[in-house]
């Protein structure tokens, strides 16, 4: 069957170029510009997909990017929307969500058992017996979801761009295009975006049997093309509204984030289906879908059809169908009022049934198409069909026009207050945030001339908002009859009158949900899943609200709407991911590390050398070898990633007093002190060393991961405290090397004139001198070894000093060690590390850091919380532990639980085998009752084995 019409004025297809493709193993021919659905429909293919739940046959519904039952795969991409995806030469397509194909889907039997599967059945079933739940879970998981994820999907770059304009207009229908011209005429930069492949909106297809609108569209587009300052973007949708008029525009090739000075939302409305039995059969489609088929793709929707309507729009659809060659057998109008178009339609030989409804669409024997419609009188007061007299009309298609729902998602997201306008039976904006303007159908304006006027009004308002002079036009209310019916629902004893096509939800499902107590729109949404399918309720939410209002006998505005969140339309993950920027920092020694076989690890923003395995050496062996070098001779580590911050000024010490937990006012120049930073709740954030270089200069070295956050917090605190000081973050400007081990002092002495004797340069002191001719700050630390020197030097000169140390230490067998080895070394020293041995709830009392707290200071961050906490009993405490000597069992891991029976006492925070000590050692949180030296506790390993640990003193190293 060929449903292709003669050439239509303004059609989107190129009839000179034919395209061959296959669908479900059958070959089809299309024209360039056809969508998959339009091409199949033109060829007479009625069953294009299967519904999600009951696997019912489905065809064209909207042809507007919302036909979510018609999802296809080409073997690479899945869930392609056939109603809008253009067909391409050689495509091999199959419908998703079928077993055995769309025509003979083996799962179609589910439709026949649908009474057993009402909404929410799976909430109640399958819980008992519990042993069977895994079986049912597998069944449900298999049934849920659409399509099969292709794990070999190619990585296709989808750019995320940023652009700017004066005015962003969403919707390139007559309203938006008119607004664009007015704004452009004022010299402003305009971006106008529309999800359709071509601009024009309904002006391109809502013709009502006349070419006048097509001509009007051509004139309007010509006018738009004449403005160089209009950027018309089609085939892209505005996906959400974010503060300050930031709107992501999603196109096939990526997302463009548009920042506009003002926004005009002329996004139109979604046509809503009336609800009657079998309104989902292939051949039953929205009136606007029928018009799109005709005028965009030159396809006749059906041969003999019925139009069911509840507004004047349906009469225009009837006229368009007649022009396309469809024999329109009846226009069935739920209303009793006469339409201004009824005379013209009647003149074309169409019988009009005012005050009637389609009670039921009749299905062909295999339920794959329409064979007729049963018409009954409709009681508009009770919203029921009067079934005493049924009229059966044989037909192969039904066009539906019952009303509209505003495409107001972005308005909602922007914070617009909406009110229900009974004149148009839809929600319309009542209060819109500054800088945003609504126009056209989304504003409740439907007549073409009025829409153009409304576009003009909105454009002028936008101009005035931007400080330009423009007329202040008054908002005109919609004139004429309502474009939407108040309750286009037709109950039927046998059901299958679908409200939500995505999820196969019928009227009775809402009634049942309300009976179950889910009678709030948000609860009802979640129980019935209405609006939770891929079309996100664009064709169902409004009817769901109306049904709930009727159930609860409340006005629609009392029911309200569900929350609209970005993104407005399902957006591929690849679009959200974009190019995938992964910023990272490298030290000046990175290449050296790489060339010497380092294995890198990510710590904070940095790539750090974790360890340097020799050929064939395991990670564990490499770490142990590096640690042994530090213990027995000497090692060096690139510590450039440490946070490094200078605090300058007369109030520098006062700042540290307030910011950290210790005492710094009395700290002597040339000395170092431990610093611990808490948050206001007393939780440990970070720690480090404060080196006093002058009375008015402290040099802080802090952990890698938190450095940026600590610096930001310092800036924030200084903003509040307004002390006489300056903060300088030198993390990237200075590199750091730590040389550690028994030979460290001897090696360093060959490269500096500084007196390194323990008397002149004792532990916890800082000196400024030169190392290998390079200015350096030297700090005596004992983080990984009792003999250790940190050298902080300009990052660019790091390689010179590193190499000099390697050369000088050659005879001692100096070798580099990485951050993983550093963790083992500090564990041997018994040092807890914030972020490793603490978590987001740990306070200093819990790690035994009372010594670091000067509680009687006037103030420090977190002090007040600690004053409260110290009066409370401890709930956990960090302890050092060892496993049994020569332990050979399954090694516990970080985060393994400490258990007593089934009770959780705590967890391991660090654990490692130390070759130097020849013992497995670690730190763990345990309950206070388990902290005594010699106490034992059980660790449960990943495989469930219990391992005994014994609490010991630190350091683990014997002095």
């Amino acid at each position, binding site marked *: 069957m060929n449903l292709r019409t003669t050439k239509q004025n303004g059609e989107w297809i190129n009839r000179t170029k034919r395209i061959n493709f296959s669908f479900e193993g059958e070959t089809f021919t299309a024209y360039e510009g056809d969508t998959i659905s339009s091409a199949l429909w033109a060829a007479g293919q009625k069953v294009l997909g299967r519904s999600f739940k009951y696997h019912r046959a489905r065809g064209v519904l909207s042809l507007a990017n919302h036909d979510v039952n018609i999802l296809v795969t080409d073997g690479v991409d899945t869930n392609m929307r056939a109603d809008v995806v253009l067909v391409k030469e050689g495509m091999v397509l199959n419908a998703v969500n079928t077993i055995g194909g769309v025509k003979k889907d083996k799962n179609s039997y589910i439709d026949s058992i649908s009474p057993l599967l009402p909404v929410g059945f799976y909430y109640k079933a399958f819980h008992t017996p519990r042993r069977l739940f895994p079986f049912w879970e597998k069944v449900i998981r298999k049934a849920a979801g659409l399509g099969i994820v292709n794990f070999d999907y190619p990585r296709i770059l989808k*750019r*995320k*761009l*940023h*652009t*700017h304009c004066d005015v962003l207009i969403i919707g390139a229908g007559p309203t938006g295009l008119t607004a664009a011209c007015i704004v452009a005429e004022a010299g402003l930069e305009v971006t106008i975006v529309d999800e359709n492949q071509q601009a024009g909106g309904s002006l391109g297809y809502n013709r009502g049997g006349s070419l006048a609108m097509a001509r009007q569209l051509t004139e309007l587009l010509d006018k738009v093309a004449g403005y160089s300052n209009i950027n018309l973007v089609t085939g892209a949708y505005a996906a959400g509204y974010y503060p300050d008029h930031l709107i992501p525009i999603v196109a096939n090739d990526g997302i463009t*984030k548009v*920042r506009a000075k003002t926004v005009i939302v002329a996004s139109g409305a979604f046509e809503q289906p009336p609800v009657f039995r079998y309104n989902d059969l292939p051949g039953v489609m929205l009136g606007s879908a029928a018009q799109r088929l005709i005028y965009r793709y030159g396809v006749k929707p059906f041969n003999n059809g019925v139009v069911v309507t509840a507004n004047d729009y349906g009469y225009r659809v009837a006229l368009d169908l007649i022009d396309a060659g469809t024999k329109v057998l009846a226009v069935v109008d739920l209303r009793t009022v006469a339409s201004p178009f009824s005379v013209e339609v009647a003149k074309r030989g169409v019988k009009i049934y005012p005050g009637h409804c389609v009670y039921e669409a009749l299905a062909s024997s295999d339920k794959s198409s329409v064979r007729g419609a049963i018409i009954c009188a409709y009681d508009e007061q009770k919203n029921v069909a009067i079934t005493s007299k049924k009229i059966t009309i044989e037909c192969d298609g039904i066009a539906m026009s019952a009303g509209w729902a505003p495409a107001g998602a972005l308005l909602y997201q922007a914070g617009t207050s909406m009110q229900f306008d009974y004149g148009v039976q839809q929600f319309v904006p009542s209060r819109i945030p500054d800088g945003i303007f609504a126009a056209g159908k989304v504003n409740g304006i439907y007549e073409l001339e009025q829409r153009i006027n409304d576009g003009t009004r909105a454009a002028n308002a936008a101009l005035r908002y931007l400080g330009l002079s423009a007329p202040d036009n008054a908002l005109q209310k919609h004139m004429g009859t309502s474009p939407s019916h108040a309750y286009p629902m037709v109950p039927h004893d046998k059901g299958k009158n679908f409200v939500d096509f995505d999820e196969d939800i019928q009227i009775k499902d809402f009634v049942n949900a309300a009976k179950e107590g889910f009678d709030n729109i948000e609860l009802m949404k979640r129980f019935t899943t209405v609006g939770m399918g891929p079309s996100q309720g664009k064709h169902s939410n409004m009817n769901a609200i109306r049904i709930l209002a009727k159930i609860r006998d409340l006005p629609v505005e009392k029911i309200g709407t569900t929350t609209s969140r970005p993104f407005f339309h399902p957006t591929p993950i690849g679009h959200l991911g974009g*190019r995938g*920027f992964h*910023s*990272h*920092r*490298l*030290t*000046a020694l*990175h*290449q*050296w590390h790489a*060339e010497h076989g380092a294995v890198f690890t990510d710590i904070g923003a*940095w790539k750090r050398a974790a360890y340097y395995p020799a050929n064939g050496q395991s990670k564990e062996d490499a770490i142990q070898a590096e640690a042994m070098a530090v213990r027995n001779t000497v090692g060096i580590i690139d510590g*450039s990633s440490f946070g490094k911050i*200078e605090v*300058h*000024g*007369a109030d520098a010490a006062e700042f540290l007093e307030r910011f950290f937990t210790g005492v710094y006012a009395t700290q002597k120049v040339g000395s170092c002190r431990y610093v611990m930073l808490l948050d206001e709740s007393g939780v440990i954030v970070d720690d480090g060393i404060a080196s006093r270089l*002058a009375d008015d200069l402290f040099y802080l070295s802090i952990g890698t991961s938190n450095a940026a956050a600590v610096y930001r917090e310092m800036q924030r605190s200084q903003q509040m405290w307004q002390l006489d000081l*300056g903060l*300088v973050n*030198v*993390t*990237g*400007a*200075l590199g750091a090397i730590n040389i550690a081990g028994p030979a460290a002092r001897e090696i360093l002495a060959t490269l500096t004139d500084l007196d390194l004797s323990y008397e002149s340069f004792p532990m916890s002191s800082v000196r400024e001198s030169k190392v290998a001719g390079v200015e350096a700050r030297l700090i005596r630390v004992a983080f990984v070894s009792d003999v250790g020197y940190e050298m902080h030097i*300009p*990052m*660019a*000169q790091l*390689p*010179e000093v*590193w*190499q000099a140390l390697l050369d000088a230490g050659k005879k001692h067998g100096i070798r580099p060690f990485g951050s993983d080895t550093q963790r083992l070394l500090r564990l041997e020293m018994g040092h807890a590390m914030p972020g490793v041995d603490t978590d987001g709830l740990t306070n200093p009392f819990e790690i035994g850091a009372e010594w670091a707290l000067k509680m009687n200071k006037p103030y420090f961050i977190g002090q007040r919380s600690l004053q409260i906490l110290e009066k409370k009993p401890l709930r956990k405490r960090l302890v050092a532990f060892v496993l049994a000597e020569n332990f050979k069992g399954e090694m516990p891991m970080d985060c393994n639980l400490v258990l007593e029976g089934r009770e959780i006492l705590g967890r391991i925070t660090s654990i490692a085998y130390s070759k130097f000590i020849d013992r497995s050692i670690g730190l763990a949180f345990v309950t206070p009752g388990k902290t005594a030296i010699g106490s034992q506790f059980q660790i449960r390993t990943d495989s469930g084995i219990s391992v005994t640990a014994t609490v010991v003193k630190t350091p683990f190293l014997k002095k």
Partner: protein
Amino acid sequence: MQALSTKNSLKLDAQTSPVALAQQGDDVQWAVVNNMQIAATFSTPDVEQARKKVLGVTDVSCFHRYGFKGPKAAQWAVDHELAIPSNPNAWTLSDKKSLVLRLGGSEFVVEDQPGGDACQKLASVTARSAGVYKVPRADAAFILSGSAVLNLFSELCSLDLRPSSVLVSDVIMTQVAGISAIVLRQTIAGEPVYRIWCDGTYGAYMWKTLIKIAVELGGGAVGLASYQH
């Protein structure tokens, strides 16, 4: 800038541009400028000129820089004969050969263009001055030229950097490719270019990101030698 003496390999233990790690390849010729190894050329002059016209990315991390901040920083700069912008977040030329960037109200970055010596003069001032704090600089710095520069920024920066929105004297502190950066418009030898500075430890990442997009847009890496005139 003098003609550069180049070689085709890097010395690992010498000062090197923080960007160099991401630049190494068979065709790169290295030069030492201001005691720092820097990429002098990546290809033939014709190829690099063509890239410059579309989207050329040049590493100029080797330029001398000096940073200082503090409540008395502006006065200190004037006392040391440095021309400074009168407005925050602006830049000016001092002695025609040194860029002076004012970051906010009280922080300054000075960058000597070829022939400039303001940084060395300032660095020679060793006495500490109350209310003035030296800010060590180890930036990765870039020149971006060509007709497609704004296309690149469109992907990397959320701000409107078009000439119609950015004053010639504006200094913009923003995020580029997800990291903190300074951006301004400059004219070099009559050619309008954009400049980017970021922390040197992000230099390799920034270079890779810039070059990847530049190549996609028809441009690419341009050596410092192409600016020697």
